[in-house]
């Protein structure tokens, strides 16, 4: 190559034609990360169905008991074991109580247990897993061994013990479920934090003097949000399942509360005479857990977790 630049003259340049002018114009507005994820989520029919079902269920659980002429205990002795009708949407049970209203009360209980335990697990899991993953070394070793010990015993045994000690209220059920279920969240957060803390942005934050707590919460946990959300959506159905399972066996929460497991249990004696009644609690539990699983899968796909 010659060291001298050739002289640049005007005739070396030509004007662009009209249609070439806009060739680099970006026609699509740039989307934020979550906007992009939402668009992908919407394409997943099952996940969308799950989301709609859950929204409707939550609204019904809030408003049906408020506006319904029946409450979960009121009896209509003239209409016992009635089939579904306009008066009683899902029919009535053996004491003439409206099943629709009872199912919606059950939804309040199941959903609040599911979401409350998920929220508690989120906090404990992030703090515990975050510290274990961020500090590492001996601290991590000890914290993980503690988890191993707790995890080795089936959840059910803890739940049974807690319910026997603290009585069978909804709150002891929440406490009991939380006792073991935060572990999967803590493990997830720990793995994420361990790999993220080696990234350049974590180093950069450290270089400009951010505190450890700030790096952990503002940089590492935020970047691990995808897997955390997926883990969270999977916790809700498992909590609902544990509660309904125990109430179904008759060792769950207070039997006067119409939780879904209790409602299914009530129908057990009636499967020969009135098998129709069992459909409602089964449908409620299955559709809710299915919807939550669909939403969880959908969120995972939308955030493209597998690609990483």
């Amino acid at each position, binding site marked *: 190559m010659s060291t001298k630049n050739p002289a640049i003259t005007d005739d070396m340049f030509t004007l662009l034609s009209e249609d070439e002018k806009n060739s680099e114009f970006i026609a699509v507005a740039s989307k934020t990360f979550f906007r992009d994820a939402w668009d992908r989520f919407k394409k997943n029919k099952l996940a969308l169905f799950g989301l709609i079902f859950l929204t409707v269920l939550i609204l019904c659980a809030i408003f049906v008991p408020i506006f319904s002429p029946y409450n979960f205990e009121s009896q209509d002795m003239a209409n016992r074991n009635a089939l579904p009708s306009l008066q009683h949407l899902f029919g009535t049970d053996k004491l003439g109580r409206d099943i629709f209203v009872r199912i919606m009360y059950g939804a309040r209980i199941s959903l609040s247990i599911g979401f409350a335990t998920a929220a508690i697990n989120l906090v404990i899991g992030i703090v515990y897993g975050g510290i274990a993953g961020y500090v590492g070394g001996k601290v991590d070793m000890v914290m993980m061994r503690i988890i191993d010990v707790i995890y080795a*015993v089936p959840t059910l045994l803890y739940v049974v013990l807690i319910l026997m000690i603290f009585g069978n209220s909804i709150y002891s059920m929440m406490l009991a479920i939380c006792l073991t279920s935060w572990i999967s969240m803590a493990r997830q957060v720990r793995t994420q934090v361990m790999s993220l803390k080696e990234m350049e942005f974590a180093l950069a934050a450290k270089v400009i003097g951010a505190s450890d707590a700030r790096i952990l919460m503002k940089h590492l946990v935020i970047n691990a949000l995808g897997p955390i959300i997926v883990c969270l959506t999977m916790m809700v159905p498992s909590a609902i399942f544990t509660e309904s399972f125990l109430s179904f066996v008759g060792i769950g929460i207070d039997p006067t509360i119409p939780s879904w497991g209790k409602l299914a249990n009530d129908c057990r004696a009636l*499967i020969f005479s009135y098998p129709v009644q069992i459909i409602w609690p*089964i449908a409620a539990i299955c559709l809710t857990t299915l919807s939550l699983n669909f939403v969880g899968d959908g969120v995972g796909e939308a955030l493209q977790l597998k690609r990483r």
Partner: protein
Amino acid sequence: MLKYATKRLVIGILTLFILVTITFFGVHAMPGDPFAQDNKVLSAEAYAAMEAKYGLDKPLPEQYVIYLRNVLRGDFGESISKKGQQVSAIIAKRAPVTARVGAIAFVVALTIGLTFGIASALTKKRWVNSLITLFATLGVSIPGFLFAMLIMILFAVKLKLVGIVGLDKPQQYIMPVFALSLGSISSITRLSRSSLRDVMNQDYITLARSKGTSELKVVTKHGLKNALLPVVTYCGPMFAGLVTGSLVIESLFSIPGIGAEFTSSITNRDYTLVMGLTIFFGAIVIVMNLASDLAAAAIDPRIKLGK
């Protein structure tokens, strides 16, 4: 291997010890009086005699040491609601029934789950794949006890094919076993499918094919051998699931096993029985977890190097 096994064994024993401790103090912290049954009022002497009989008159730490020593000898004390019956005798009588149903469910879950998982991973037909995916999703979402009720209504009430209760005839095993293993079948299907798919994309599979190895040999010797590791690790948790499931399945189908006994002991507030069964269940799950982890480490040497 020896170092890894020792480490796991120590953790296992520690867990068992903590379980016994929690159970002991948990049960003793419970409100209520184990002798206040049948609304009978006991005289002061009778009460003291009862307390002395069950060793409840001694201070709590001393009771704990005695209990620990007895548990080590396999003695869980005498049941409170069933007079004159040792907890260990009740376990010995009821456990074989549960073990039989559980073992069948274990084998069924592995066989069907692996068949579905492998078929779904290797098939080129889309409908086979979607059918298996649908089944696996439903299986994870429908709780086993509800599935049990559904098949009960279908096969016993509507079609009247089998009786609901008891385990006298071989066909009566079908419903409890399937209800018990449904969740595990789905999990194994998902697990083996995704891991076999990953493995089949590896370079050594391509190498094996290019050397002219038959497809059957590629799948069994190179593919499955590596893909089955997650399934082996899953056997521990699966066992815990089967134990948990036995609680409801046994009371639903009136199977006289240890799960049904556990449920009724809780309802009866039979403290010694609850304690004994909790420790027994916990111990089984801990041992099975240990076994599946050690098996996984024996198959794959990478595990014991630490993740």
